[in-house]
């Protein structure tokens, strides 16, 4: 499965947010812990709504959480 042309800093942001667990983030966003794990590993591209919800949990703009990878353009 090809990786999406963007990466994310969710793992780092979870750590900076008091070592928030994948399960906690999933509960706040409305997805399962496994889906958060899949997003972190680049195995699943979240919908725009879930991407915004994740960014809102961390209080960051979307592009701080998800970065477009120019090499994968």
């Amino acid at each position: 499965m090809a990786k999406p042309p963007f990466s994310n800093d969710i793992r780092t942001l979870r750590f900076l947010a008091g070592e928030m667990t994948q399960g906690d983030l999933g509960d706040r966003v409305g997805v399962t812990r496994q889906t958060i794990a899949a997003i972190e590993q680049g195995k699943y591209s979240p919908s725009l709504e879930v991407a915004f919800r994740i960014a809102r949990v961390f209080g960051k703009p979307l592009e701080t959480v998800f970065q477009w990878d120019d090499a994968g353009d």
Partner: protein
Amino acid sequence: MALLITYAGDHQMNFREKTAWLNVVAMVVAYSVYFGLLLSGHPAGREVFPMLWLFGSIAVAHAVTVIVGTVILSARAPKSERARADERDRAIRRRGATMAYYVLLVGMMVVGVYLPFVESGVPLANMGLFAIVAAELVNSVVVLMSYRRGWHG
């Protein structure tokens, strides 16, 4: 089987992935027995009542296995996982159903082409059943592969 479903490598499976494994294992076992008996000359391959009896027994055993297994998996799953499918679960389910649709379509076309050349409906019913089982297997395998390798919806 429970061991396989619970510990498939270091990959963390959610409730729906485990139920997909349950479906695959139960279906492979049940219908391997059914079609294996047909290939070995069981009268269910030629006559109506033996076929209904054998198929009924296999289908009931399969259904009971899946229901009991799903109840056990559901009882062991965290509440957040069994509440409802999230968007990734739904995307993966759509992919499996789409692939299975094509398998079922081709299987039914083969049955339709075969129809004018047979007098008894039993072989046709078995071919149709095989197409359904194959489609359902493809569905479950695609779902499992999508959970394992990733799917972007």
